[in-house]
């Protein structure tokens, strides 16, 4: 790919990017969130068309008009969020959208497909039952189905977009093995990531993107984590976390969770007999691979989900559970994982969303009538204090960017002076600048005495913010570590259920 440029309204996502990968190599595309990695791969897979630049495949210039063109050219991508049909079987998903030979017949000859899938999965070490339904599979297994899809189509180039975000360190190791095996067969694997050690572990060469431009292409072997990090962020940084003095905390237990058991969406037990406490001003991080009960725990504390057994106490007051209003009144703030849709009503204005929890209070209503002017003033105040970029308080929040949405949610929750703040994936999808801001807001809140329960799939985030870390695995707390003493390896092992082995 030579001189690729792609502009979106307001941003240049790719600016004169050059990228080349050889047959039989694992080539990593490294860069921070927003560096243009995903845009570049979307151009290569025909989802976007470049504004400028050329793409050459095996020496031939190509122009993709649709994703199908790219598929026909042998390029497959495994997206961060899987493109699978949950009620269908693995084999059905594998042939879905494939328009050659076997899959094209009106009657799908499933046993032939299943045999082929089985053969491929044993050859590349992708253990998965072709007859299983996708919804029954773990996230790691679903990812294997995505890779099988690419193999079945005889892809020559496989793009993996942040494949390890949903995996335990051990599952990631297995994935790396598969990718190496594919490369040895002469396929090209493009591995998109912002995690240095992974890139170092799996790639032959590394191309670093920063701010939409190519910074360098280097061999992985001689590169060090430090040198890669420097290329990625544009300056020398300390890879290790700066050691912090443990903060002194008052001995007031603001949030007490005792023997909490919560059911998941399908009625299964998602949180099992969990007990912990958070003190005033303390940030407790919950680490774990996605889907191990973090979401259910957050929802139970914030009243969004029924409590099956056990108790949640806010400043000594016990919640009945399953009632968000009760939790709000008890002083629980909640920054949900799903900002737009749960945390905010997308089509409503900034003003409406600012008062969405507090419109009942005396400050915003006189009897059944709303005090529209005061609502607007409150919104203007939050916009100013939390630096929310919006054309005005009347704008529908759907038009705001991810970072500004999160600032709006945080601002609203902080303004209500909560005792406890439940924060889920606060920086997912945000750019570096916004992440910094969100982190500093959370630290400020803790400094003011708010007890914060932080759920994050990003271990670095938990290490950067938390005073104490709880590791969950299959709905249970399998480890508790003081932030200063925790190492990534140790947490990783616990996240994968390593404690029980």
């Amino acid at each position, binding site marked *: 790919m030579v001189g690729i440029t792609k502009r979106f*309204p307001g941003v240049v996502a790719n600016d004169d990017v050059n990228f080349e990968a050889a047959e039989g190599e694992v080539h990593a595309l490294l860069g921070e969130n927003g*560096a243009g990695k995903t845009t570049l791969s979307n151009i290569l897979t025909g989802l*976007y068309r*470049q504004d400028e630049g050329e793409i050459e495949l095996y020496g031939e210039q190509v122009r993709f008009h649709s994703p199908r063109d790219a598929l026909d050219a042998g390029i497959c991508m495994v997206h961060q969020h899987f493109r699978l049909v949950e009620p269908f079987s693995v084999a059905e998903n594998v042939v879905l959208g494939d328009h050659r030979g076997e899959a094209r017949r009106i009657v799908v000859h499933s046993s032939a497909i299943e045999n082929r899938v089985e053969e491929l999965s044993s050859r590349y070490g992708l253990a998965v039952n072709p007859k299983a339904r996708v919804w029954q599979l773990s996230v790691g297994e679903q990812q294997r189905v995505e890779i099988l899809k690419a193999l079945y189509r005889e892809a020559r180039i496989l793009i993996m977009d942040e494949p390890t975000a949903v995996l335990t360190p051990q599952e990631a190791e297995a994935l790396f093995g598969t990718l190496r095996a594919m490369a040895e067969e002469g396929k090209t694997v493009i591995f998109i990531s912002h995690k240095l050690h992974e890139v170092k572990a799996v790639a032959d060469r590394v191309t670093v993107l920063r701010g939409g431009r190519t910074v360098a292409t280097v061999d992985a072997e001689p590169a060090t984590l430090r040198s890669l990090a420097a290329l990625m962020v544009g300056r020398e940084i300390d890879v290790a976390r700066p050691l912090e003095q443990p903060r002194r905390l008052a001995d007031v237990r603001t949030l007490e969770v005792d023997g909490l058991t919560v059911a998941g969406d399908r009625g299964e037990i998602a949180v099992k007999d969990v007990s912990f406490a958070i003190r005033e001003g303390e940030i407790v991080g919950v680490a774990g691979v996605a889907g191990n009960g973090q979401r259910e725990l957050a929802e139970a504390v914030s009243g969004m989900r029924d409590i099956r057994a056990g108790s949640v106490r806010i400043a000594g007051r016990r919640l009945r559970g399953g009632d968000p*209003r*009760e939790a709000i*009144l008890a002083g629980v703030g909640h920054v949900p994982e*799903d900002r737009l849709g749960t945390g905010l*009503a997308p089509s409503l204005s900034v003003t409406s969303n600012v008062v969405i929890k507090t419109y009942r209070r005396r400050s915003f209503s006189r009897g*059944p009538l709303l005090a529209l002017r005061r609502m607007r003033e409150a919104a203007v105040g939050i916009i100013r204090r939390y630096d929310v970029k919006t054309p005005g308080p009347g704008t529908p929040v759907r038009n705001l960017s991810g970072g500004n949405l999160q600032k709006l949610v945080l601002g609203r929750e902080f303004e209500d002076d909560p005792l406890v703040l439940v924060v889920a994936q606060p920086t997912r999808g945000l750019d570096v600048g916004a992440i910094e801001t969100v982190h500093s807001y959370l630290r400020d809140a803790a400094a003011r005495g708010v007890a914060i329960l932080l759920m994050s799939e990003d271990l670095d985030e938990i290490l950067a913010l938390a005073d104490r870390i709880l590791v969950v695995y299959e709905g249970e707390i399998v480890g508790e570590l003081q932030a200063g003493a925790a190492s990534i390896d140790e947490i990783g092992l616990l996240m994968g259920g390593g404690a029980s082995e």
Partner: protein
Amino acid sequence: MKLERRLEQPWWLSVAVPLGSLVVAFGIMAVILAATGHDPVETYREILDAAFTGNGAFSATFISATPILFTGLAAAAAFRMQLFNIGAEGQLYLGAVGASWIALQLGDRSAASTPLYVVAMCVAAGLAGALWALIPGVLRAFARTNEIITSLMLNYVAGLLLTYLIFDSSSYWRDTSTLQARAFPQGKPMPEASNWPTFGSEVVVPLGFVIGLATALALWVLYTRMRFGFEVGVIADSPRAARYAGMRTRRKILSVMAVSGAIAGIGGASQIGDFTYTLDGSTTGLQAAAFGYTGIVVAALARYNPLAVCLVAVLIGGLQNAGYTLQGPDFPSGLVGVMQGIILFCALGGELLFRYRLRIRRRSSAQGASGPAVEPAR
């Protein structure tokens, strides 16, 4: 050529789009009229005359507009919360049943005060309509059934109930006083004092229409200035956000259905008090008028804004009224229906343009070959 979602909807569009839709509708209709051998200009002049400008036209238009004003408001009230109450039809029947019952009861006790009758009839009709609407409401709130289907089915039940009360039973509503009435079933006539007053002499405005206007204003205040409306807005936009914010969604479903049903019910009271002065059980009368369904069209054209419902109700009422005048030997009633259909069709098409922007551009010239207009993924 493609459609793009509008990020913001300028206020003038909400006026320009419906007007534009009407113009387009009349344009298409002109072609059909010409093709079937009618002079479009002459026909439109007749319509205008019969609906608005002619002698007594406005009085006739108000008569047509009154019931669909109520059902339009009923639909708007529920649809604003994405609660699709299609049952205004049945709720209106039940309102008529309730209003006629209380009027007959008061008549039996020889009450003579018209204001008493009006208030009692509205209350009884509102209650009856609300209770009828609460059946799909409760099912929706507690059993998660689809309110579109349940409320629609209950319309047929309500229609059969109406027929049963007058034709198939010797109910309290049926007139059995004379031999003729026993042979040809009909409802009891309402007491004289229960007939609602009208306003004006040149243009006659029925009391029901005035009550409808007041209801529209109240509904507008409720939905734009009160906590009730704020909650409805949040629930409509995102039920998850509503739950997150601690709103009582079930309770709101029940109250919105009750409000919607009550408004439709009062429309039934207005039918009794303003126009028919008896409970009409025949399948060719109240049941054939389809006020409830027309009300859905009215609400959609008014984009669920109660104040706009008033305007649209008068407009559609005028068209219906003109339809009665137009149809005759050389103007089949089917053509009137076609016209109303085209107007609806264009209005719904216009709705699309309100939310989306049509962008026309040349096909992939050298510079214009950019990717699909999706958000930048990073």
